[in-house]
């Protein structure tokens, strides 16, 4: 009697919390964006700045996701299969992007690659502008989304062990063949799950990109940045509409996570 009462009470608290904090706000934005029908929504997301922001966001993701996927796999193999001096340092630096403020990340990149930074002058002389342009935004995106693939692949690598890899090597397979034929197929679900998380982070990053991009309207403005500018400029319809596009991407991400999670854990 009391046990089932406790159960219902806890269920009520848990679902109420989720409803008030996550679900209702997200449903509200859908309602708000389409308040005056589909027309204003479509006009808002097809205005040139918004289209440019969408393209830029996708371009940055298209460059960042493959890079962090490839290197994430390499880091995971290094950390799980190898021993080397500085291993714990590498491990710590792979966790840091989760814990560090995106503003601090953006500033660190400016101080290294910006005008007056460590390499700013040399890069400028070489005709390469990092800060307030695409390369800097990519660097910021790479930093914040660095750990996801490695973090997802590491437990899978530990789980599968290295017996098959060793067998392949004894039979004369080279390192790359062993990786392609044995390791990669075994870790593929972990990689895919990591790629989903990386992509969501690359598309949604605000703070680090805001610091380094300089917010040049119509040039270095990604989708999260345009939401902020439209909101500050009282173009609520515009801000809500672009937010809905981002929320749709987020919901798709959550759906994909649900589909692939059992495979990762299996």
């Amino acid at each position, binding site marked *: 009697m009391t046990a089932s009462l406790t*159960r219902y009470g806890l269920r009520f608290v848990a679902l109420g919390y989720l409803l008030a904090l996550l679900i209702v*706000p997200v449903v509200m934005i859908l309602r708000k964006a389409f308040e005056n029908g589909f027309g204003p929504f479509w006009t808002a997301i097809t205005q040139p700045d918004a289209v440019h922001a969408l393209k830029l966001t996708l371009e940055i993701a298209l460059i960042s996701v493959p890079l962090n996927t490839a290197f994430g796999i390499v880091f995971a193999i290094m950390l799980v299969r190898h021993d080397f001096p500085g291993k714990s340092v590498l491990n710590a630096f792979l966790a840091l992007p989760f814990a560090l403020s995106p503003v*601090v990340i953006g500033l660190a990149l400016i101080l290294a690659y910006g005008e007056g930074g460590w390499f700013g002058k040399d890069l400028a002389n070489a005709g390469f502008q990092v800060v307030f342009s695409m390369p800097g935004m990519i*660097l910021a995106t790479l930093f914040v989304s660095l750990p996801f693939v490695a973090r997802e692949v590491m437990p899978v690598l530990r789980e599968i062990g290295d017996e098959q890899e060793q067998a392949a090597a004894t039979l004369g397979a080279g*390192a790359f063949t062993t990786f392609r034929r044995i390791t990669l197929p075994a870790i593929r679900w972990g990689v895919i799950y990591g790629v989903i998380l990386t992509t969501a982070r690359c598309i949604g990053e605000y703070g680090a990109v805001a610091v380094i991009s300089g917010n040049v309207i119509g040039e270095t403005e990604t989708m999260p940045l345009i939401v902020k500018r439209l909101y500050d400029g009282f173009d609520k319809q515009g801000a809500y509409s672009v937010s809905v596009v981002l929320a749709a991407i*987020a919901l798709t991400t959550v759906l994909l996570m649900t589909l692939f999670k059992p495979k990762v854990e299996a």
Partner: protein
Amino acid sequence: MSQPAASAPARTFSPAAALPGLAAGVAVLYLSIIVLLPLSALAWAARDGGWDAFWSAVSAPDAVAALKLTMGVAALVVLLNGVFGTILAWVLVRDNFIGKSAVNAIVDLPFALPTIVVGVVLLLLYGYQSPVGINVAYTRAGIVLALMFETLPFVVRSVQPVLLELDREMEEAAASLGATPLTCFRRIVFPNLLPAILSGGGLAFAKAIGEFGSVVLISGNIPYKTQVASVLIFGRIESDNQDAAAAISVLMLALALAVLMLIGLAQRWGTKHDR
């Protein structure tokens, strides 16, 4: 080596998945370009003006106020999500109802939703034109709300697997000996979950002290009142005061590293608990 079974016999050949040295070298170079060099440049800039400049930057009254506020709200949010996160995890593991898998999926939403959108949606429901009559715009409560949203999944996702693994026989034995559900929870379930609650809470804390995007709209950035550390640093950068920004950033970096270390300890404690 973390594979006791596989690595027991002495190896006469190099590890099978051996990375060619080149790949490892390129990976370290990549990490240096993206993470190590920028953080070194940050530390360098912070000590550029000497100890006095560093100290005056981090002890500026508005900086101290922002850091205190950041710590305070982060601690409160961790406490709240420690409680609600544990309840959610319990409901997701032990309870059964229609739509449970959808609820389980939606818990991940804060990981996927861009932070700036979090600010926008929360202001819609809890801002000036709140349809439910709750307005937390430009208040500390607003900051707490945004951080609660952002850090919701951490404790849930860290407690859930532990609860799933937890042997129920102990609880049943306690219940059959007359222990109330509360005693059961306090004496059996909670001690087993504590390491997971702490490590999830630690991650939530780390995320909360650094959070920017979701807070920047809702906090209103009022110095001494609703200005958190990351928004303060952003202001310093915007007003071309990079050295002061770097000094406060280094403090945040040290804090992040300290929290990560404590999480590592909590996790190690958790695995010891298992055995």
